[in-house]
């Protein structure tokens, strides 16, 4: 599941510019895995945004939740929570949190981004192991995977020609990953309560063993100002799958 979520995150991970992401948006997806040529629904993935206020600042709370459908809970229960607290305008993260429960395995992770944007204090707690603390350096443009997910939707795809590639860097498991995104043109996709929509088709590639195949990791974003992810297809070492929008609210 970690690889699946990592892949899904990569597929949603690019952009520049300023935030068009609103608070109180909720996107719900049905995640399916290809078993013997048939798609089997495994889990529900929700992406939500919310405004969080502290005494001095306002943050945008970006969260991803993955939960297996009840029929799978007895066999392999998943309850994953990924969160990023970002500047509402620039989407630069201040805090990233990850808490996973996958078939009994647990891992809790936290990154605190220093004001310089290049130093991260990371803490990790795995099941039956003591908590570890680590300070590490990253590039000034590197971001956690969740905040980058939302940056994708601020990117101006109109300015790209089909086949054009952009490169980016994301942080996952306390490592930086170079990732490239290729704009492949437009296609119409039908999903959830949004119905049929013209979408930007984007291919993602990363220098990691989490993704497989050329142009097999794809995402379709609505070709409008919202850029809602309608469909995500992924190919990982253990198979292929997809995430299809089932409901979008607050957009």
């Amino acid at each position, binding site marked *: 599941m970690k690889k699946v979520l990592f892949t899904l995150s990569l597929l949603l991970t690019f952009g520049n510019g300023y935030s068009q992401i609103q608070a109180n948006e909720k996107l719900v997806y049905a995640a399916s895995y290809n078993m*013997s040529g048939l798609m089997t629904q495994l889990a*529900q993935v929700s992406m939500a945004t919310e405004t*969080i206020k502290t005494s001095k600042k306002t943050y945008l*709370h970006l969260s991803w939740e993955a*939960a297996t459908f009840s029929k*799978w809970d007895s066999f392999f229960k998943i*309850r994953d*929570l990924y969160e990023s607290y970002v500047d509402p305008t620039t989407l630069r993260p201040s805090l990233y949190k990850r808490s996973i429960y996958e078939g009994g395995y647990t891992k809790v992770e936290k990154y605190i981004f220093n*004001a310089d944007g290049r130093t991260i204090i990371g803490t990790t707690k795995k099941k039956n192991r003591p908590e570890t603390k680590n300070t590490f350096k990253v590039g000034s443009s590197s971001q956690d995977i969740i905040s980058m997910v939302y940056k994708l939707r601020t990117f101006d795809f109109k300015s790209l020609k089909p086949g054009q590639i952009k490169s980016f860097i994301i942080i996952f498991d306390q490592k930086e990953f170079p990732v490239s995104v290729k704009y492949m043109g437009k296609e119409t996709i039908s999903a959830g309560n949004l119905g049929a929509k013209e979408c930007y088709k984007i291919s993602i590639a990363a220098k990691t063993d989490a993704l497989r195949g050329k142009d097999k990791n794809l995402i379709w974003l609505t070709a409008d100002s919202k850029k809602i992810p309608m469909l995500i297809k992924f190919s990982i070492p253990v198979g292929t799958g997809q995430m299809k929008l089932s409901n979008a609210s607050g957009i």
Partner: protein
Amino acid sequence: MRKLFFYLAIFFSVLGIAFAVLPLGTIALLPIGLALIFSFLSFKKSEKNQKKIPKLLLIVSALTLLVVVGKEVFIKDEVIIDKQFDQNKIESKKDAVKELEGLE
């Protein structure tokens, strides 16, 4: 040939039942379909006094098929309300606010 069909029918019937019990959705239709085919072939190839078990396998496969189709039609994919998970989310948010206050 009858023996081959017979053993294949048993194998796929058992596999079909296992898949039907597991939450594998329509994938279970693959072994069930094969079980039906081999059960039918085994039934056809059998002498009158040998038809009892192939017939039983056909019935079992047909019932398994009904169970799988019924599960697909009547049981919806849904996530149950998980109070522990919901509580963890609330706690996580509270802790995050404290962390963010500490950063400012």
